[in-house]
């Protein structure tokens, strides 16, 4: 399993869709870059503002200095045998899944790709399409052997839906990331296609979101730019199928005007803002690394990624991921992630919405380190 890292046609299909959508939104990349730059240049103020507005919206907020702190926060919070989770690279970065599992907590992936990767015991190969290295036939085989669901793809997926629903209904905790945090309103913005993140963030009593501090933007329109860019460049969609803008816990005032939390959605929303080297990255002149929107466009054109797949990168895939590992986990991790593999072809820069110059960043990093 997993000899090639993308089934034939997938990359071409996505690129064609992306070209079509990009024609609809001329200047989207520049617009996105401006949002990111402006936000990063006032990062401290935005972090402070976001903490204040999230709290005003009755979210519990923690600013975690590193991965260990964020992980410990969650380990201490979770007092249930099972949690449901939607796709988040930040959750991967803090290594919370193995830590929870070590504590005996079952972590149920709810996005199809992650679920398949989890069932197959593999490693995610792509930030948006984690199972793109596994063929349809292989997926059907895994679903049949592990879940007992049989039939064609549609029937198998209907079985997955029912299987996952059982967990979604009974879980007390839902774990997600976020595509953006809106400082003005204290909102989390989560984009997805399947509806699993909506279920994870609406059905359990407690929603825990982990999000890097570089994701904080001033207002809702900025968040829309971020999401639209991720969708157009990521999977060639105008926008992800579902955007959930969540501003505080669920509440009702319908009984005699008294505000009660936890009506249909969660009663508690816990937001963990993650630094884990991001400030250092910014302060040491590697701001560009933080422009990344995790769309994955660079991976499709990277010759190294094509050859080595998920081995190239750390918590985040590819050359940019390897470089970023230097800040989150240190130089050894970055080297192990393939920092020296980059061939400086510059193709990644051409397709990146923010024009991140990964080869140049890697060169500079190698000099410093």
């Amino acid at each position: 399993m997993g000899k090639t890292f993308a089934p034939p046609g997938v990359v071409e299909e996505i690129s064609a869709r992306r070209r079509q959508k990009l024609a609809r939104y001329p200047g989207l990349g520049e617009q996105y870059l401006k949002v990111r730059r402006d936000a990063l240049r006032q990062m401290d103020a935005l972090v402070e503002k976001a903490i204040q507005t999230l709290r005003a919206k009755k979210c519990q907020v923690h600013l975690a200095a590193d991965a260990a702190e964020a992980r410990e926060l969650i380990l201490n919070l979770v007092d249930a045998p099972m949690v449901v989770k939607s796709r988040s690279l930040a959750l991967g970065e803090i290594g919370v899944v193995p830590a929870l599992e070590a504590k005996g907590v079952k972590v149920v992936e709810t996005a199809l790709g992650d679920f398949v990767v989890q069932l197959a015991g593999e490693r995610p190969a792509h930030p948006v399409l984690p199972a793109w290295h596994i063929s349809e036939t292989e997926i059907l085989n895994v679903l049949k052997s592990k879940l007992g669901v049989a039939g064609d793809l549609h029937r198998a997926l209907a079985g997955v839906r029912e299987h996952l629903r059982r967990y979604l209904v009974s879980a007390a905790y839902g774990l997600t990331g976020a595509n953006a945090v809106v400082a003005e309103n204290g909102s989390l913005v989560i984009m997805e296609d399947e509806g699993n993140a909506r279920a994870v963030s609406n059905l359990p009593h407690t929603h825990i979101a982990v999000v890097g501090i570089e994701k904080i933007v001033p207002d809702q329109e900025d968040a829309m730019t971020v999401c639209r860019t991720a969708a157009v460049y990521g999977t060639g969609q105008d926008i992800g199928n579902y955007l959930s803008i969540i501003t505080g816990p669920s509440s009702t005032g319908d009984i005699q005007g008294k505000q009660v939390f936890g009506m249909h959605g969660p009663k508690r929303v816990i937001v963990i803002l993650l630094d884990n080297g991001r400030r250092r990255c910014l302060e040491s002149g590697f701001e560009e690394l933080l422009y990344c929107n995790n769309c994955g466009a660079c991976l499709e054109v990277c010759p190294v990624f094509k050859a080595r797949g998920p081995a190239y990168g750390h918590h985040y895939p590819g050359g940019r991921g390897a470089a970023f590992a230097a800040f989150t986990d240190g130089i050894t991790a970055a080297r192990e992630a393939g920092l020296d593999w980059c061939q400086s072809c510059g193709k990644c820069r051409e397709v990146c919405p923010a024009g991140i110059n990964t080869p140049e960043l890697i060169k500079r990093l190698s000099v410093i380190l």
Partner: protein
Amino acid sequence: MTYSKRLKQKIAEGLEDKVSASVRQMVTRVQGPIIQEMIQKFDRAELRPRKEYAIGHLAELVDQSVARLQENGFIVFRARTAGEAVDYILKLVQGGSVVKSKSNAVKEIGLVDALEAAGVTVVETDLGDRICQMGSIPASHPIGPALHVPVQKVAELFAAETGQPVPPVPEEIVKVARETLRQRFFEAKVGLSGANAICADTGSVVVMENEGNIRNVTNLPPVHIIVAGIEKIVPTLEDGIKVARVAGLYGMGLDFATYVSVISGPSRTHAVEGKVVHGLQGPGEVHIVLLEEGRWEAIKEGFAESLYCINCGSCLGRCPVYGELGERYGYKYFGGIGVIRTAFNNSLEKALEAGLTLCLNCRKCVAACPVHINTPGMIQRLRERAVAEQGMDWGRKMLLMQLLNNSSAIQKLAPVVGSLVCNRDGKGGWYPRYSLFGIEKGRRLPELSKKSFLSGAPRQSGKGEQKIAYFAGCLNNIVFPRVANATLRVLQQSDVQVIVPPGQKCCGYPSLVNGDRDGAVRNAIANLKVFASTGVEVIVTDCATCYSSLTGYPELLAGDPRWAGIAREFAGKVKELAQYLVEIGFQPAADKAQRRVTYHQPCHLTAHGMTQGRDLLQSMPGLQFVPSQLEDNCCGFGGTFNLDFYQLSKTIGAHKIQPIQKSGAEVVVTSCPGCMVQLMDLLGSAGQRPVVMHISELLTGGGGQHG
């Protein structure tokens, strides 16, 4: 039953229903200041141009939306009429249960009744709506429909639903409601919702809420059906977010609602070899019914502005009539804007029944609206249509054409007739013994003056270089010549020559709001002619309504090239009395009696952002100014409104006079003779204090008239 009888019946029911009125007023009292504060902080005045653009380009945006929605996998149905929409949905939903969230469009097409008649169970999922549904209790408020239901009753309803005891504690009830409704979400075959906006560029639907029920309605059942009017379409995703932000801000005082969801098609995944497969955790099938009923007609007939409405309900919180009558004022949509929507979605007849004649023209809704929809202006135009179709009754014609219009024969006759048919209280009050011209038997009216002001006014008075003209208005002319005379005295103190041009007519306002546009235009032209010959640079009026009306002549005559320019020039010269006095630096003399005085701010000055009357009082030496709460609330007079709907007018006024009396003032001063009539009636029947005075009476040291 004729529409007017049905309307009268609805008003009577509304006035009886004190429970829901008190809920509405409580919500306005508690939420009003919070909403205002949040608007100050967060509003960006960004929506009006976007809605203007959207409705101005609706045909192409509908086409674009349909294409993009379909591209995203929505099944789009364009419903020309409400009936088509219902038929389409009835074919989709065969038995079983439907979970539903709040939606005006669903209500507009009467879908719930149709589904239930077809044997489908419809479960409301918003807690307030669900409480009302379980108890068959009528909603009392659009946002908090069950606020009037006691917590014990709510507990009983859920106990009956679950067969388990439920303690009468909101937190406990919410737990039970969450669990019982969860079951419904998972059982349902279909989720039914509306939309706050549709984004044409991304082919997305925006919904907002606080509870999370809409997220479940739109995510858990295998099929999702959205019903939305085409006026919800906006050009971009960012515009859709703006709509949600503004609706949360103006509707609930939230800078952003708890949940805003943007849905761009059925649930899908690319996880398997990048192929698109539908129906993962969210629905695999999403239908959107785009409702056109009445919208194209509204645009074609010059009422596009009515489609700028985002249903935030902000106007309702400020509307005096909605405050008393609630959902009885309107039909499927509420308040004045609801009446306008009714005229196009249903019929003019239905709009009349919904309350086309109820708008007071206080213009509070315009100020409260995030896109400043001119609802009163559109209502006036619809009244013109109604009059054109149905005619005006002869009593109303007499009043408008003769008594108010300075016909000297009638004006001489009226005080004589009046004194014959009314009892007097010796304090300037008349109590009609019969109901005449819509004036209810037994109400307190100010005595008509035996001699009208204009018949004896000096054509020119005062000394000074500058000449100004005075516009008296019909109430001063026939009811309060003493106010007009006091105004002349105040003006004379300021070294100007005051001209009172003979032949001046009623400003035309009563005609205009009664749907007689031609009559209003005739009066306007007559007044323009009369004042043009005076050659003055300033025309002063001491009536707030006349001020509003005279400065509106350019709009009234905009289509008439002979008069439009003259009207603009004229309007530029018109000043309200206090506005003029403040401009010329008038120093009021000390109030020798050192009275405690409060102020009533007329709506027609608030609409122009003018508060000089109050400023002048506060600067008056010797006088103790005591503010009263709700100083700018409407008194309920409304020109001829109080003749048509006296009880309603009185109930609105009652909220006005309570704080005036509470202020402990001896005198309540105002700048509008219309408001004076109303305050005198209400205070006269409530007791003797405070006395009601026009500002010019106070400034000239007058004693005023008992209430």
